[in-house]
């Protein structure tokens, strides 16, 4: 079932001379896990902002084409309506938390929507639970680590019960360990709670094994869109400013050493590569 679609979408920021998005045609089905990759400034963030109505309602500019989120045209519905379908988490967790306790932050959006208190309580409990941060409930955001803050930011959006979660480089300010933990939680949201994920991210190594689809954007245009394994097998993504995951590089080198008949394929995780090599040894 299509949950998100864009049709011939072009966007230019007011005051900008270049199109930030060019001819974007995209169809997303419910339950997908999509990585948006590309060099900084390629249009990933702009595209994400089209999915929750920040474009065209918050940012001025010229927009051609349309975006439909769960059947709602983003030109006709304000961000506060669209956010209940497609919730957005930004890069810097500090700028997404406004309250003085975690609980108040998670309740913030629901209070704004004047949802009854009992339901707020229920949804806050649920969001804290699925993010695994119930013990942080009464903490101040100043006491939290970067990874914890980003989890609170995600919980505060999840409380809106969106079907789609948009994440704009959520791990960029985190150390590798916290980034891994955050990504594991995001994967769980997708696999266990069937939330559709669109994530703009540079850390492909950690994400690729879970992604159902990889979209590479260059200069505002979707240049590659499809199964991550196939894309990495057939294309040199480095020219689009995307770093090839290390395990793919290792496999490519091994293929050179072992010859084309080695049948290594394109493993996306270390575990996968080890499994392939082990199977070959016993053949």
């Amino acid at each position, binding site marked *: 079932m299509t949950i998100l679609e864009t049709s011939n979408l072009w966007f230019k920021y007011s005051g900008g001379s270049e199109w930030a998005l060019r001819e974007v045609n995209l169809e997303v089905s419910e339950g997908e896990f999509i990585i948006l990759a590309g060099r900084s400034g390629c249009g990933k963030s702009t595209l994400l902002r089209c999915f*929750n109505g*920040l474009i065209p*309602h*918050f940012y001025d500019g010229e927009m051609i084409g349309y975006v439909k989120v769960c059947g709602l045209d983003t030109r006709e519905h*304000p*961000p*506060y309506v669209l*956010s*209940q379908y497609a*919730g*957005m988490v*930004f890069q*810097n967790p*500090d*700028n*997404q*938390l*406004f*309250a*003085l*306790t975690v*609980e*108040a932050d998670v*309740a*913030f*959006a*629901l*209070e*704004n*929507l*004047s*949802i*009854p*208190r009992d339901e*707020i*309580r229920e949804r*806050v409990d649920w969001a804290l639970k699925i993010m695994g941060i119930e013990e942080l409930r009464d903490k101040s*955001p*100043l006491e939290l680590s970067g990874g914890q803050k980003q989890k609170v930011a995600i919980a*505060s*959006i999840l409380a*809106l019960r969106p079907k789609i979660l948009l994440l704009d480089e959520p791990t960029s300010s985190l150390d590798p360990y916290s980034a891994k933990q955050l990504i594991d939680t995001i994967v769980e949201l997708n696999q266990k709670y069937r939330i559709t994920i669109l994530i703009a991210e540079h850390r492909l190594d950690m994400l690729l094994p879970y992604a159902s689809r990889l979209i590479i954007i260059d200069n505002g245009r979707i240049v590659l869109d499809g199964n991550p394994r196939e894309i990495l097998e057939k294309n040199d993504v480095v020219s689009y400013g995307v770093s090839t995951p290390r395990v793919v590089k290792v496999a490519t080198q091994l293929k050179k050493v072992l010859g084309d008949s080695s049948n290594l394929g394109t493993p996306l995780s270390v575990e996968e590569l080890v499994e392939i090599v082990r199977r070959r040894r016993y053949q």
Partner: protein
Amino acid sequence: MSTILRGLQFYPGKTIIHKLDPRVKLVISLLLMATAMMYIEVTIITIIVVTEAVLAIIAKVFSRWARTVYGAAPLIIFVFIANFLFKLSMPGQSINLQSIYEALQLAYRLVAFLASFSIFFLTTTPEELGMALTKMKVPYMYTFAFISAIRFTPILAEELQSIVDAQKSRGLELEKGNIISRLRRYIPILVPLMVNVLRRSYELAEAIEVKCFGAKKNRTYLRELKMKLKDWTALSISVTLFILAVYIRYFSKIVIP
């Protein structure tokens, strides 16, 4: 300055004073101040200060409370000198013990003022303050501004520090020269700080948009203040004492030493 600010900082606590409704605490603080306004006599002000000290001890914040009052010493001395000079400038006044004593009284009264505010802030979370503002029908826009000011002050302080460090490591010398050249040296600190603040405010605006800020006219609240028995008790005791103080001052013939 920093000592006074520290006195206004909140430390979580579980004493009966912490758990009182912030509105009641605010009323008590204001009543203590009003009492100090009515009386100038050293005996009464001492009674007020001692009462405040007892409250601070019950709330287990005595040392921090005392530090705030101590930190306010320059202000108190300033008030004393200003009053003293003002008295001298009146026609027909000369330096005598009486005028020193009167200026001292005014400065002492200030101690009672500050001390009462300090207890309030030391035992009330900013969040409770926000809830109290909401209950007092202050529009949410202002409460939100207040809460986020408190939320972002430490972050901005941290940012300021890192800009200072970065500029110092590029050779900026802040402690050199006279006042004018020193102020000029702060420009490379203030410009990046302003740029950062502007950028941050844009990101914040985006984030509150996504979180449906201002979506509905009537906002709901997850937590709300409720007056309990202990709040009513504390309120009635302090109001009674205040009425007594008013009576003694204006309607009785008791002479205060």
